[in-house]
């Protein structure tokens, strides 16, 4: 049992053309910048992976991370709740030009759809979006006198997430609100790739404190000095 891989290039090798990729993070908290940039490096060197569907709460900020993927032309579709940010140019330009598709999902529904994908629940009912244009075309049903919208699970080929601690079984902890969508995405992807701040021995993470059990994790790469997206944005960094 050893899920540790040697470097970022190896970690992102699993992403194929046309793949659906869940990327952890809410704004900059939890954004796996190094994994994303390794994927961009691969695309620049080989032209692959392209035509990606990316699932994230947002749609990138500035000229780094997911925004840089979009700039690079790797992303065919975004599934997100809030495609705005302090500097949303990358997505906005492509979207208004009709060069990128958008599936807009309420944030709680996005989280629950991802969890459902990981938990083997193909569909569920939620009050969220009932009677709004985001429910258009979706089945509705009444339970105990209240109306609900049927939502479907979301799964992915690959999840790219950022953790605080990892062991070689893939047990993970997160840092503060950088947790957000990552534990759910780890469940919902066929292959989950993690960049961890530190790799520790099995047993060093108290079994009571494991947030993502290793069963949901496939590959772990150590990135000790990970960048924080928000900090990069404020420094004006561009990944170009």
């Amino acid at each position: 049992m050893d899920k540790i891989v040697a470097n970022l290039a190896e970690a992102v090798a699993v992403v194929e053309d046309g793949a659906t990729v869940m990327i952890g993070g809410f704004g900059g908290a939890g954004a796996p910048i190094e994994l994303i940039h390794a994927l961009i490096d691969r695309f620049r060197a080989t032209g692959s992976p392209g035509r990606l569907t990316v699932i994230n709460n947002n749609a990138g900020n500035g000229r780094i991370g997911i925004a840089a993927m979009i700039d690079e032309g790797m992303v065919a579709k975004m599934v997100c709740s809030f495609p705005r940010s302090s500097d949303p140019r990358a997505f906005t330009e492509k979207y208004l030009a009709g060069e990128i598709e958008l599936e807009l999902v309420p944030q709680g529904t996005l989280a629950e759809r991802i969890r459902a994908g990981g938990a083997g629940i193909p569909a569920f009912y939620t009050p969220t979006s009932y009677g709004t244009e985001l429910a258009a075309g979706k089945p509705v049903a009444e339970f105990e006198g209240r109306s609900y919208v049927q939502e479907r699970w979301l799964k992915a080929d690959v999840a790219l997430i950022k953790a605080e601690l990892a062991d070689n079984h893939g047990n993970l902890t997160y840092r503060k609100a950088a947790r957000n969508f990552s534990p759910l995405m780890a469940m919902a992807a066929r292959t989950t790739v993690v960049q961890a701040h530190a790799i520790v021995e099995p047993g060093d993470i108290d079994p009571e404190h494991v947030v993502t059990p290793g069963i949901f994790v496939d590959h772990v790469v150590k990135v000790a000095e990970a960048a924080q997206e928000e900090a990069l944005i404020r420094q004006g960094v561009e990944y170009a």
Partner: protein
Amino acid sequence: MKLTNAQIAWRAAQDIEDGAYVNLGIGFPEMVAQFQPSGRAAIFHTENGILNFGEAPPAGEEDWDLINAGKKAVTLKPGAAFFHHADSFAMVRGGHLDVAILGAYEVAETGDLANWSTGPKGVPAVGGAMDLVHGAKRVAVITDHVTKDGKPKLVKRCSLPLTGVGCVTRVYTSLAVIDIVNARFVLREKLPTLSLDELQALTGAELLVEGGIINLNVPEV
């Protein structure tokens, strides 16, 4: 004469009980946290996975892994907890929040809320708005009574894309406090400097009065 945003936020804060679990929408509603009456402490929830966060840290001391739903840096109070997004929205959708206080483009007398989209132009973004309007035991709105060009924001039926149907129960405006009861606006409080007729003229649906109108007196804040 009308209330400032801070004064509207102050008024909304007076209705939050000690120990209440509260979600404040991003932007203007965040101000409500500043005006908790002394002796009361609400527990603030942010949908990106924190309960019991506190004020912003001093500039330069931000930890960008410790942010609220508006992506602003926050701090923790003792007794805080982190959790993932599915648990966070279980709190929202599952009826565990006591109050959600949100902004609005329009509120209809039916309790319908429009606060996420001004129409088909540009890039649509919804965030957690459609989730927050469902589940909190009380969904309140704070808003200017009219739009920047003077049109009513309290209307018979919303003209903008809906965030939720029949979800709002109280509106705190720059001029009044209005409850929504049985799909009608019921006026509870208004600025004493404004007549009922004047207020009605600025409102897009009929204001009912039940058992008296309280003067809306708010201190300078």
